[in-house]
C-alpha cells in the first residue's frame, strides 16, 4: 500500500554517463589531473577488491559477517576523496570505501566483522569515527561534532572544517536522522549529510521509507538537498566537495542523496533472492561505477592496459595482505574486555576481572569453550 516515488522527473547530477562519456553540469564540475583521474580509478578497484576478499573470507568462516559495498564504490570513493584532511567523517557499517580514503587499514575493518574488536582504529587520529551499527545514531554525533567546529571558530573560509554523516535510505526514517536535520538547521552547522540510497534497507525498498525522492527531505527542514548519480565517482566527488566547502565557509548543512544500488546482499547473512528481481540487478550492472570510469579513462586516453594491469596487481597484493592478516589475526585476551569499559576503572570490574581470571586459570589446558 506504499506509494512509489516518481523517479523519472528527478534531476540527477551526473558528470560521467554509464558509457563513460564526460558530460557537463551547470552547477557542478570537476577538473582533475590525469594522475588524479587514474588514482580515482585505482581506489575504486582496490576498494572493490577488499570487499570481494572479505566476502570470500566470510564464506570460509573467517569473518562472522561482512557488509558488502558492491556497487557503491563510486559514491564512497567520490565523497571520500572530497574530504579534506581536516574533515571528520561519521560512517555506518558499510563505508569501507570512505575508510580507505581516510587511511584506515582494511584489516581493522575485517577485525570488526571477525569479532576481534568493535572498532579497531583511533577515530581521532583518522578523523573517521568508528562504525555505527545502530541505524541513524551517527548523524547526531556528526551534528554535535559540527557544532563543536563552529564553537572552535574553525568555520568561515576554505581552511575551515566540516563533518560528514553517512547513512542509508532506510535510515532516513529514523527519528535521530530527522533530529539531526533539525539541529543542523537550527545551528547552521557545518555538516554534509551523505545518504547512499542503494534502493534497499535489507528487504525494504526505498518507497516504504519515502514516497518522494529522499534529497527533497532537506527542503522541509530549510536547507538544500541534491541528488547525485552515486555510480558516478566524478559527480559524487564534485557534489560532495561543493557541499563540504559550503559547510566549511559557513553556509550550513546540505543533504546529498547518492542514487546507487546495492549490488550484493545486505550482508553475508542475507538472501536477496527472496525479495528482489534479478532483472533489477542486471539493469544496474550496466551502470557499474568501475566500468564507466575505465571506459572514461580509455576514451580520454588517460590509461592504457599496462596501467589497468598494474592496478590489478596492486589489488592482488592488497587482497593477499589482508587475507594473510586476517588468518593471522590473534583473538583478544578475554580479560581485556574489562579494560576499557571506563576511563577510570571501577572496583566492581576489577573484582569481575579477577573473578574471570582466576576462573579461567583454574582450567588445565584452557577453558572448555562451546560447552553450552
Amino acid at each position, binding site marked *: *500500500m506504499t506509494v512509489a516515488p516518481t523517479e523519472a522527473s528527478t534531476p540527477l547530477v551526473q558528470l560521467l554517463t554509464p558509457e563513460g562519456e564526460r558530460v557537463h553540469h551547470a552547477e557542478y564540475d570537476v577538473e582533475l589531473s590525469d594522475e588524479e583521474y587514474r588514482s580515482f580509478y585505482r581506489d575504486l578497484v582496490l576498494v572493490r577488491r577488499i570487499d570481494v576478499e572479505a566476502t570470500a573470507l566470510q564464506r570460509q568462516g573467517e569473518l*562472522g*559477517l561482512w557488509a558488502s559495498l558492491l556497487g557503491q564504490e563510486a559514491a564512497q570513493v567520490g565523497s571520500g576523496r572530497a574530504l579534506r584532511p581536516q574533515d571528520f567523517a561519521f560512517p555506518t*557499517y558499510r563505508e569501507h570505501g570512505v575508510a580507505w580514503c581516510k587511511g584506515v587499514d582494511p584489516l581493522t575493518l575485517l577485525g*570488526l*566483522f*571477525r*569479532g*576481534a*574488536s*568493535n572498532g579497531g582504529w583511533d577515530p581521532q587520529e583518522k578523523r573517521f569515527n568508528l562504525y555505527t*551499527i*545502530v*541505524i541513524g545514531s551517527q548523524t547526531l554525533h556528526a551534528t554535535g561534532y559540527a557544532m563543536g567546529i563552529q564553537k572552535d571558530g574553525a568555520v568561515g573560509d576554505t581552511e575551515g572544517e566540516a563533518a560528514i554523516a553517512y547513512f542509508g535510505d*532506510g*535510515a532516513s*526514517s*529514523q*527519528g*535521530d536522522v530527522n533530529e539531526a536535520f533539525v539541529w543542523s538547521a537550527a545551528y547552521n552547522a557545518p555538516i554534509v549529510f551523505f545518504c547512499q540510497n542503494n534502493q534497499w*534497507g*535489507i*528487504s*525494504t525498498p526505498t518507497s*516504504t*521509507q519515502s514516497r518522494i525522492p529522499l534529497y527533497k527531505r532537506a527542503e522541509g527542514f530549510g536547507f538544500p538537498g541534491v541528488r547525485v548519480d552515486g555510480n558516478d565517482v566524478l559527480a559524487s566527488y564534485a557534489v560532495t566537495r561543493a557541499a563540504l566547502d559550503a559547510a566549511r565557509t559557513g553556509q550550513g548543512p546540505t543533504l546529498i542523496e547518492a542514487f546507487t544500488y546495492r549490488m550484493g546482499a545486505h550482508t553475508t*547473512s*542475507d*538472501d536477496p533472492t*527472496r*525479495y528482489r528481481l534479478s532483472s533489477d540487478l542486471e539493469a544496474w550492472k550496466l551502470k557499474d561505477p568501475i566500468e564507466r570510469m575505465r571506459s572514461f579513462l580509455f576514451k580520454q586516453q588517460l590509461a592504457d592496459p599496462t596501467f589497468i594491469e598494474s592496478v590489478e596487481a596492486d589489488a592482488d597484493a592488497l587482497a593477499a595482505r589482508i587475507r594473510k592478516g586476517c588468518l593471522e589475526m590473534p*583473538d*583478544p*585476551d*578475554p580479560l*581485556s*574486555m*574489562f579494560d576499557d*569499559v571506563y576511563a577510570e576503572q571501577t572496583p*566492581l*570490574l576489577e573484582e*569481575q576481572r579477577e573473578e*574471570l581470571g582466576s*576462573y*579461567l586459570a583454574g*582450567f588445565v589446558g584452557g*577453558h*572448555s*569453550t*562451546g*560447552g*553450552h
Partner: protein
Amino acid sequence: MQLTLAKALNEGLRAAMEKDPRVVLMGEDIGKLGGVFRVTDGLQKDFGEDRVIDTPLAESGIIGTAIGLAIRGYRPICEIQFDGFVYPAYDQIVSQLAKMHARSKGSVAMPVVIRIPYGGGIGAVEHHSESPEAYFVHTAGLKVVSPSNPADAYFMIQQAIASNDPVIFFEPKRRYWEKAEVDTEATPDSLWRSRIVRPGTALTLLAYGPMVRTCLDAAAAAEEEGRQLEVVDLRTLSPLDFETIRESVRRTRRAVVVHEAPRSIGLGAELAARLSEELYYEMEAPVLRVTGFDIPYPPSRVEEEYLPDLDRVLHAVDRSLAY
C-alpha cells in the same frame, strides 16, 4: 511434529492470525524476507500485506503506531529485529505502552506483543547479542516472558497474543534452530507459571530462555557426579511465578540463578533479594548468581568467556554446596 524453535513460533503466529483477524504483524523485513530469522516466513504471502506489515526503519514508529492500532482495536505483534535495536522505541514502551491501561483506568487495553530475539552466542557483531530483559521487568505495566524450547514457543506466543496486557516476548535467538517435538493439540501450561523442567533435591538452578538448556546440561553433568540438581524454567519474568520458585527452593534449600544479562540489578538480584527474605530461615546458602559481567557485550571472539556456560554453572553449584 518436530519443529525448531523458530518454526514453532512461526506456527504459533500463524495459528493466532487464523484465530483472530485483528492480529497484525509489524516490523522491519518481516514480509517477503520473513524476518532475518525467518520467524514470520510465509505469513505475508498467506495473510497479505495488510496483516503482515513491512514497516519503515524506525523502532519508535513501530511501537508508537502499534499503540494506535491497539486503540483502534487491533492486536499488533511487533518484531524488533535484534535486542540491541529496541532502545529507540524505549520511550514509547515505557511511557506509553506500559502506562496506557493505568492512565485510562482500564478503558484502553494494550494487547501488544513485542517480539525480541535476544542473547548472545551466535558470533554476531555489536548490538546483536544483548540481554535487555531487566529494563522491562523493572518497568511496571509490562509483562515479560521468554520461552526456552519449541513447544513453549508455540504456545506461549499464542498466549501472549491472547493477553490483554502488553507482553515483551524474548526469543532465545541462539536456540532458534534447536528442534523438539511439539504437540500442537496439547493443553499448554499457563503463560504465568514457571516450570520445573528437571526435578532434583540438592539445589535449584533458576534460568530462562537460552540458559535453560545450559542448566539442563549442567544438571545432567552433575548427575554423573551423583548430584541431583533441580532446574526451574522461569518462563515468565514479569510477573515472576514466585510460588513455584519459592516452593522449589524451599525443598532444595539452595539456589543458583543463571542469566546472560549483566549481573548488577539483573533478574538474579531480584530473585536473590526475595528468596533470601522469604526463605531466610530455610536456606542453607546465599543465592548465587552466574551471569554476564557488568560490561558491554564483548566482541564475539571472546563471547564464550563472557557467557555463562556449563562449567561456570557447575562452579557456582560447588560454591553453593560448600556452604
